[in-house]
C-alpha cells in the first residue's frame, strides 16, 4: 500500500538541498517508526519517491513524496510521529493513502505547480503590476533555456497556466513534471528582460504553494492538488492499543 506525504519547508531549511531532504526523510522514517517498505539486495533502500525537487533558497507549503508501506498507519498518528521526529524548518502536513497503481505516483502525475514570487524592495519599477500584464499579453515569450547538453529557444507563454497579483507578490501557476517544466525564476528572468533590467535570481523570493496533477479529460486541463488524490487513514492502531 502507498501513502503520500505533504510537507512544508521554511526558514533555515531552505538551504538544505533536495538530496539532503531525501536523506533527512529517510532518517525521519526510522525515528518515527513508519513501517516503510524496502527494496531487496545487499543494500536495501526505502521505497520512497519525491514529486519534484525544490531549489536551494526556496520555501514551500506544498512539497510531496510517496512511500510504500508494509502495514497501514492512521494518518493522524503518522503525521504526529513524523513531526515529532522533524526539526524546525520542516513540517509534515498530511499523510494519505493513495491508489496502488504505478502511474498514480507523484512523479508521474505531476503536471503543475504554483508559486508566490516576491520582489525585494525597489527591484522593480513602481508600475510593475501593469507591466507584468503587458508582459503576459504577448502571444509568445521566447527565452533561451539551458538543458543538460545544450541551449534551446522555447516559448514559455503556454507553460504559464495562471497568474494574479497578490499585493506585493505575484502568484504564478506553471507547468511542472517530466513532460513540461517551467521554474518561476525563468519567468522572472524573462520579465526582467522585458523591462530591460538585468536579471539576478537573488532579487526575488520564491515560495512554492502547491503541486498539482492534471485530472482533466479530452485534453481539457483540470489541475488538482496532489494531496486531494489521497484519503486519510482512519484506522485505530491496534498495535499501540495493546502496548
Amino acid at each position, binding site marked *: 500500500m502507498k501513502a503520500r506525504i505533504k510537507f512544508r519547508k521554511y526558514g*533555515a531549511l531552505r*538551504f*538544505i538541498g533536495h538530496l539532503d531532504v531525501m536523506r533527512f526523510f529517510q*532518517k525521519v*522514517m*526510522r*525515528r518515527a517508526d513508519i513501517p516503510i517498505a524496502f527494496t531487496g539486495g545487499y543494500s*536495501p533502500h526505502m521505497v520512497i519517491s519525491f514529486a519534484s525537487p525544490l531549489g536551494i*533558497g526556496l520555501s514551500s507549503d506544498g512539497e510531496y513524496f510517496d512511500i510504500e508501506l508494509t502495514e497501514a498507519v492512521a494518518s493522524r498518528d503518522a503525521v504526529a510521529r513524523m513531526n515529532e521526529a522533524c526539526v524546525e*524548518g520542516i513540517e509534515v502536513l498530511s499523510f494519505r493513502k493513495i491508489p496502488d497503481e504505478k502511474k498514480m505516483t507523484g512523479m508521474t502525475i505531476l503536471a503543475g505547480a504554483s508559486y508566490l514570487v516576491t520582489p525585494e524592495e525597489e527591484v522593480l519599477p513602481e508600475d510593475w503590476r501593469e507591466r507584468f500584464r503587458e508582459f503576459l499579453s504577448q502571444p509568445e515569450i521566447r527565452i533561451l533555456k539551458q538543458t543538460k547538453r545544450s541551449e534551446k529557444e522555447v516559448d514559455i507563454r503556454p507553460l504559464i497556466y495562471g497568474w494574479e497579483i497578490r499585493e506585493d507578490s505575484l502568484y504564478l501557476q506553471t507547468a511542472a513534471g517530466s513532460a513540461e517544466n517551467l521554474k518561476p525564476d525563468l519567468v522572472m528572468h524573462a520579465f526582467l528582460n522585458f523591462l530591460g533590467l538585468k536579471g539576478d535570481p537573488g532579487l526575488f523570493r520564491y515560495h512554492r504553494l502547491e503541486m498539482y496533477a492534471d485530472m482533466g479529460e479530452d485534453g481539457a486541463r483540470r489541475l488538482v492538488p496532489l494531496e486531494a488524490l489521497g484519503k486519510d487513514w482512519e484506522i485505530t492502531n491496534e498495535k499501540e492499543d495493546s502496548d
Partner: protein
Amino acid sequence: MRKLALSDEILLKVEKPARYIGGEVNSVMKEKEKVDIRFAMCFPDVYEIGMSHLGMQILYDMFNRRTDVWCERVFSPWLDLNRVMRKEGIPLFALESQDPVKEFDFLGITIQFEMCYTNILQILELGGIPLYAKDRTSEDPIVIGGGPCTYNPEPLADFFDLFYIGEGETAYEELLDVYGECKSRRMSRQEFLERAAQIEGIYVPAFYDVKYHRDGTLASFTPNREAAPQTVKKQVLMDMPDSVYPLSPVVPFIKATQDRVVLEIQRGCIRGCRFCQAGMIYRPTRERNVEQLKEYARAMLKNTGHEEISLSSLSSSDYSELKELVTFLISEFKGKGINISLPSLRIDAFSLDVMSKVQDVRKSSLTFAPEAGSQRMRNVINKGLTEEDILDGAGQAFEGGWNKVKLYFMLGLPSETEEDMRAIARLADKVARRYYEIPKEKRNGKCQITASSSFFVPKPFTPFQWAPMYPAEEYKRRAAIVKEEFQAQLNRKSLRYNWHDAQTTVLEGVMARGDRRVGKVIEEAYRLGCLFDSWTESFRYDLWGKAFENTGMDLTFYTQRKRGRDELFPWDFIDVGVSRKFLWQEWERAMEETVTPNCRAQCSGCGAARFGGGVCYEGKN
C-alpha cells in the same frame, strides 16, 4: 524562528550552506539568559570533517547535560565563506545560537592533526579574539585546547590560555565548576587561570618558562608560579560503564564523512606498535561492557535514524566480546535495512564469515595494514603481523570470493634499508600470486591489490620520539624505489601503488615535535595565506618555506636532527603514565629488531598500570 548569522544572499552564494545554519536533529538549543557558562566547541576544519568526530559529540553531550552550561559547535568556514566574512567583517559564530564566538565564556578547540594549526589562527582571528593569550582580556573567551596534538602543545602554547591533557570525560566537570565560581565571584582571568592550573590535567602555558641551550635544544622548562605543577598528568577515563556516551548525537543534514552511528567499543590498544602515538597515550586498554554497547546501539539507531552503524577502536579484533557484539548487530539490525560497517578486522575465519554477511563480497575489498614490507622492518616497529598471516588471510578471503585487497604501509621508518622498501612491492606481488593459485574457473576475474604508503612521522610519547626524519626529496626517492620495484613484479598488472605527499609529512614532523618557537612560523605561514593545509587544493608548501625563511627558523632542526637519549623534550612536562624509561627501552629493542609481546600476552611494565584498571588488571580481580 531561529535567526541566522549569514544573510540569504551569502548563503545562496557559498558552497554547502548547510555547513553554517545549525538546527540539526539532536542539536541542543537553550536560552542563553538561563545558563551561566557558554561554551563554543570548535573543530578547526570544515563541518563535514568535524561532525564526524566522536570525541566532540561526547563532550557536546556531556556539557549540555549540565543545566548551567550551553555548549555549541563551531567549525572552520570554508575558503569561500572565509573571504566573504573578512570582506564584510562578519564575526565567527556558533551554529546553535548563531551568536559571535567572542561572546562566549570558553572557546574549546579540539586539535586532532598537526596540519590544522593555521586553521586555529583563522578561528581566533575571525572570532575577533587576539591570537596571543597574553593579549586577551576579560572581554575574550578562555581559549582551551584538547585532543591528541596537545600531547605536545608547545608549538601552539602562545595561542592558548589552557590545554586539557587527556580524555575529556574526567576533569572538565571540575574545570567548569571552578569557572562558574570564579565568574559569579567576579574573579579576574588571571585568578581563574591560577585556579585552573591546580586541576589535574590542566596546563597553563603562560605559567611556565622555557630556556634553550646554545645548540637550540631545550635547557629547562619550569613553572614560574606556585599554582603551576611541575608535571601535568594525563587524564584517563577509568570508569567506562558509568561514563557519559552520546545516545542522541547530532545528525547532520549534509553527508558528513562519518554518516553513521559510531560505537566506541574500547579505548587504547594492547599491541604496542612503536610508531603509534595512540597506542601509547591511550594506555591502558579499557573495554566497554558488551551488554551496555547493545543498548547503546539500539538507542542511537532509534534516536538518529541513521542507516548504518560502525564500531570504533584502535584494534577491534582485540575486543574480547567482538563475536558476541557483531553477531548481535547482524541478527538485530540487518533485517531492518541497517548496514553494519566493520572496521579493519584481523582476517580470519570469523571475520570473513561476518563480512560475507554484511557486504557484497564482489564489491568490497579487504584491508591489511602490514605497515612494513619486510619481516625485519615489522620487527623494528613491533607489528606482530607476519607474512604468513597476511597470505593465509588473503588466501581464505580469495577462496571466499573476494578479489580486492588494500595494503597499508609506511615509508621512511627508522633503520629502513632499500631492501625493506622493495619488500613492499614483493609482498603485494605475493598476495597476487596467492590469488592466481586458485584454479581459473573458480576465481572471479583478475585480482586488484592496492598498496598505499604514507611517510612515517615520529610522534611524542612513542619509542620513535628519538628518530630523525628525512628531507622531502629523500621521501620522494624512497617512494620512487618502491614504485620501480612494483613495475618489476610478475603480477604488476594486478598491482597498484600510491603514496602520500612528502611535503606535508615534513611539516607535520615539525609541528609534532616542535617547541614554543615554532609558534611564530605557524603565525607567519598563516599571515602569508596558509589555510586548510590538510587539503591538497589549498596546501602551499612554498608559503610555508617562506615562513621559515622570514622567521629565521630551521626546519631541519626539528626534523632531521638525531636526538640524544637524555635530551629534554618540549613535551616532557606531561606525564602520560607510560614512562620515558620504557619508551627508551623500546627504542633500543627496535634497533635490535626485537619484538615486545602485547599487553595481554605479557606485561612489559610500561607504567600505565598506575591508573589501576583496564588490561593491566584483567583476570586479576
